């Protein structure tokens, strides 16, 4: 009994540690005071200021676009990877799937740098395409993780059944495989979007001069010191991410459980 209590207390403390800064941030964004002083007076002042800030708005739109494109491409690539390697032998499959996961452990600094240098050596200037590629490389593992897990769970029997009933490979794909993978593809897409949207480092290195993304704007503001407007920005982003996660979670509830379940789970 005491153990359980201890468990909950520890959990509570940990969650406190994880969430305090964020919650403080969010609360403060509604605070009138400029210096984050107490007492707290509720105010939407900073949000209003945001609405008028052209630069930030433009940056946000850029981030949204980049995120969306990255998400779509990431899902398409992850899906073809998952389905393609499914047909291959086991060794090729493990090799390719591990390869896709590689960017997860590579510090973004190094990745961004290398891409930049690659550009330079080709004589090109920073451009949008490479920026997208950079975002794609780092977000692909996330969607691949989800989609590959789904393909593995699915097994091949439903597709074989479809073939046996007379459906061509293409028909099988869009009437059986695709619908069954849809939830995973959606979550993969959401994940990729969020990774790309939040990403700072890669954008930092690869963004063409003249354009900017939201994280970059945040960074420059921070470098100058502390601006309360940033609280508002951060809060909005946090709330948006949270709702996106909620949607994803609802859609992918069973898959998330599957991700954490060990092999000794039910048949």
């Amino acid at each position, binding site marked *: 009994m005491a*153990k*359980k209590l201890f468990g909950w207390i*520890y*959990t509570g403390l940990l*969650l406190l540690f*994880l*969430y*305090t*800064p*964020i919650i*403080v*941030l969010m609360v*403060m964004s509604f605070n009138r005071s400029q*210096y*984050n*002083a*107490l007492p707290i007076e509720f105010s939407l002042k900073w949000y209003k200021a945001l609405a008028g800030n052209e630069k930030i708005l433009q940056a946000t739109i850029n981030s949204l676009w980049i995120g969306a494109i990255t998400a779509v491409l990431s899902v*398409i*690539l992850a899906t*073809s*990877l998952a389905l*393609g*390697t499914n047909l291959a032998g086991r060794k090729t499959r493990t090799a*390719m799937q591990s*390869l896709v996961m*590689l960017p*997860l*452990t590579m*510090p*973004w*600094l*190094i*990745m961004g*740098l*290398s891409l930049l*240098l*690659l550009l*330079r050596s080709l004589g090109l200037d920073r451009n949008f395409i490479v920026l997208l*590629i950079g975002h*794609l*490389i780092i977000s*692909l593992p996330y969607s691949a993780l989800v989609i590959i897990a789904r393909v593995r769970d699915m097994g091949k029997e439903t597709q074989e059944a479809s073939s046996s009933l007379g459906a061509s490979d293409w028909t099988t794909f869009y009437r059986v495989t695709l619908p069954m993978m849809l939830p995973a593809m959606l979550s993969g897409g959401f994940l990729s979007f*969020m990774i790309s949207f*939040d*990403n700072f*480092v890669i954008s930092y290195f690869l963004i063409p001069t003249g354009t900017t993304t939201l*994280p970059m704007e*945040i*960074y420059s503001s*921070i470098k100058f010191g502390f601006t309360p407007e940033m609280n508002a920005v*951060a809060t909005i*982003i*946090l709330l948006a*991410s*949270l709702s996106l*996660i909620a949607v994803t979670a609802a859609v992918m509830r069973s898959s*998330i*459980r599957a991700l*954490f379940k060990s092999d*000794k789970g039910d048949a």
Partner: protein
Amino acid sequence: MLISFAVVPLFIMFAYSFQGDDGSGFVGLANYARFFSKSFYLKLTLKTMRMSLLVTVISLLIAYPMAFILAKLIAKGKNIILMLIIIPFWSSQLIRAYSWMNLLRDGGILDIALQHVHLSSGEGLGILFTQTAVIIGLVHIFCPYMIITIYMTLEKIDDSLLEASRSLGARPITTFRRVILPLTETGIISGAILVFVPCLGSFVEPRILGGTQGSVIGTVIEDQFFEIYGWNFGSAIAFLLLVMVLASMGILSALRKRGVRING
């Protein structure tokens, strides 16, 4: 057709990793020499490693009990708590660094709160813009990784193993040391890889939270590229960082494989 689609991103990855950063240019190894000659840079390297190590160890200490609690002691609400742990993952690293900056600064909430409780003098916390702040920030970001990887290995341990150990007369500590710990070794090492390596290359958090005291290899590289325009030198440093990264990944992976072989 599908397979060719799959190959493309991999090819891109290969291309970039080949490119690496040998932009040390014509000056050959001079840049590397410059790095090694100045003790400043060597000290910096050590500092970065020490910081990463510290973050890893602290994350481990915090994460392990949490993972254990999650795997063994809490039945209901496990999924919710897991989700709660993961959610901060999805907030931008910038925002998280910034939120700590907000919290820790002199005159910030924490400072004021502690003053009220008379735990600190009126002169400010003095945490922000120190190494400590950087470490706190990094642990905050990375310990969920640890929690997850350790949790995954813990979950696989059948309760009956623990019961068997108990029935054979082992005290809880022994059970932990001889049964649980070895079986979670791979989880710990995986977590270590996910924490240590990115820490080596971090520069955002050190910059934001550490100010001038927060110089690490990452920030130096950033400077070279964006402030000083010493691209060649910066590349050299980055390459050395890459070497460090690969070396640590290699060592840790080898450890993990050995763990897998021993523990099954």
